[in-house]
């Protein structure tokens, strides 16, 4: 299923990395940011607050950029992966979380191996339950598959029209 997810995600234009552990995954992102220069990274506050990986993101500057037009990189953790289509699923809980998928030029996304399910139907009740939540102001479920794309000019596929031109998925144990 992991192979299928990776193959489908790549077919949709995403980059898929399989670092051996979380430290490697983080250093992969750090390297990118150092190379890119002093750009701004947008990290999902949910990722920071939940800290599901049990460690700090040393060296990653977190700047909430609600009003900023351009953001160098975004970092987020998906809640699920759908093998059928290579899709990342995120249960969004607040504004910045929604923007982290679309504002940056490059979007890095952690995905835990065991969170890969065969298809959307496998998490239908999770989606439905999240959308029915009234304890948060605007529950949203996002399916993200590959980078932003368009074929609006002469039917040619072009990447990065409004959202990221690169979507890097880091499948972590």
């Amino acid at each position, binding site marked *: 299923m992991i192979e299928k997810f990776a193959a489908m995600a790549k077919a949709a234009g995403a980059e898929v990395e399989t670092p051996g552990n979380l430290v490697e995954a983080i250093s992969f992102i750090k390297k990118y940011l150092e190379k890119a220069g002093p750009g701004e990274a947008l990290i999902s506050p949910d990722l920071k607050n939940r800290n599901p990986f049990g460690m700090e993101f040393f060296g990653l500057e977190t700047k909430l950029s609600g009003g900023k037009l351009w953001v160098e990189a975004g970092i987020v953790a998906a809640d699920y992966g759908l093998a059928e289509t290579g899709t990342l699923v995120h249960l969004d809980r607040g504004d910045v979380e*929604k923007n982290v998928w679309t504002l940056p030029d490059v979007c890095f996304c952690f995905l835990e191996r065991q969170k890969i399910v065969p298809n959307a139907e496998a998490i239908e009740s999770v989606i439905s339950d999240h959308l*029915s939540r009234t304890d948060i102001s*605007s529950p949203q479920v*996002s*399916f993200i598959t590959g980078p932003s794309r*368009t074929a609006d*000019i002469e039917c040619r596929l072009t990447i990065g029209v409004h*959202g990221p031109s690169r979507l890097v998925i880091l499948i972590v144990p």
Partner: protein
Amino acid sequence: MKNKIDPVLKKVLQDFSKSYQGKREDVLRGYDFEELRTTLAGLKDRALDRNEEFLARFEGKARAHGSRVLRAKDGSEANDLILKICRDHGVAKIVKAKSMVSEEIGLTAFLEKNSVEAVETDLGEWIVQSAAEHPTHMVLPAIHLTRGEIAAVFAAKTGKAVPDDIPSLVRIARGEIRREIFAARAGLTGANALIADNGAILLVTNEGNGRLVTTVPPVHIVLASIEKVLPTVGDALTLLRLLPRNATGQSITSYVSFIAGPHRDAQYIILLDNNRSKLLADREFRDVLRCVKCSACLNVCPVYQVIGGEAYAHIYMGGIGTLFTAWIHGLRESRDLAKLCLRCHRCEQYCPTKIPIADLITALAEKINRETGKPLWKKLAFDGLMGRPAVLKTAFGAARTGRRLLARKDGFSRKLPLWLKKYDRFRALPAPAALPFSAVFEKKFVPGGAVQPGAKGRVQIYAGCLIEHFYPEIGMAAARVLSKLGYEVKLAPPACCGFPPSNGGFRKASLKAYAALLKDFDGDGPVITLCPTCATMLAKRGPSIEGSEKAGKLGLRVIPFSRFVLEREVSAVWRMAGKARKKAKVTYHDSCHHKNILKTEKDSRRLVATALRSEIVEMDGADVCCGFAGSFSVDNPEISAALLADKLAAIAKTEADVVALDCPGCLLQIRGGCRRQGMNVRVAHTAELLDEI
């Protein structure tokens, strides 16, 4: 009606259509499309049955999330509501994600008139808006513009020199549009579905502008039509499995968002009716509301590929758009559009909710005739001639009498004069036969063959008008083949089946012709048809409009020639064909009714291949209409000519010596086209090829 054909646009659309079909096939591999679409159609039907109940549930749930749900009876109410929202929230600029419903109500122009700037953010829509044009495709709005034209538009907009490579154009648009999104105080989107159980909307997009428009500005307005409501998330997931695959040939789009409640200051959801309740209550037409706006029907529509969405639209495009237009914008607005449908039924093979688009256009043609009057030439042809079998017989008799004046030695008619030229400039028309098929059969048919004639029972041939009056040799060929195979051959009554008036929306004339034919029909054995259109009438449409038991029984007896021979006699044909491969290279043209209604295209290919002991060389777009389509080629000679030119080019590319087909209408068109082009290709009915082995 002006149907100007732009060759550049035509090529773009046709290339897109081909690449779309390839991609769609790839992403549907491993899925059972029939099963998926049957499920989706059923689900949409159930949602429509309880539309108001689900809308009410949606409203309640959305309100619980803090959304404000408003109902709009028509476009003007929806526009007023949106303007009021803008004024209440101090919105001077609103950004829009792609929404056909906003086009339907003329929102942008209305807001501009009231000093609210409305900016499109979907790349294609933004290009079209910047160029002061209209979208010409539901999914690819700027498909009619080339990169050079777009670069010129961007240069005028930005006041800077703009390179015309696509990545640069996309980069420029990204910057410009993002500035607009951040400057706007409201964002407007449509919805691919409204989910009743959760009060959530579903948005399916590729570019990401939909997400920015919903999350960046403080106010989010959703403009959705009422048929979009589905009961559950599970239903939305079923839609999602088929929508992107069928729309763009993607397994899923880049961004799919289920959104419940306001992100920032407020979310308004406007539920637009605009005559949809009326359509919903109309049992004959309500299938239209199953449409999920995937555009697959446009992507495979032969007419749309030739003239594009600007000519083939009021607001909504193509055949399905014609039907929406009739209800939303009025019957008169749909009148010219309805004539553009070939009734080839190709779109129906791709529709993800099984909407019988072509048959609904026929029903619409009836409604238009009934409520807005009939065109004169059709009144003469259908009411005056075809609706009166005796008059029609006399007319064909008169045409035969005048044959000497009309006919050339090669069997074609002399060229038409004056304004009639446009009807035979692109294809030579056949002269009426010296004797009709029924008379030739009576006089000259000699039963016989290796098998005792009649040993296998009696069959009746129903040849249809074109074979009866123009191509008796095809009828004779079929009779000889069936006789050789051991059948006693009789003829069915040689009268019109009533299909042409039915297609023209002349139900009464059609019924008269069909009923007269039915009355004369006898026997109980197989009725073998040589024309798929007649077969469609006898097997399906006739029984449904006439409704008697006799009509139903006759319908069950009908079997197309190629299917009959293949099912019962393929080994005999194999033996008769002998061992030698025939030298002729054969290609096969799919006649629309043969393939899309009778589903007999594979039978014919197998039969021809067996008879000639040779492979069929497939032509490009074998199943694209040749442009004949009965009265279509009279209503639209330019489009008919363009479709024929494409067909002839595809045939020429195969370098085939013979074009095999099963429809005398296609034979008239293609043979006449070959004649005009001076192409040395034989165009033959399957029965003729079998007769020669």
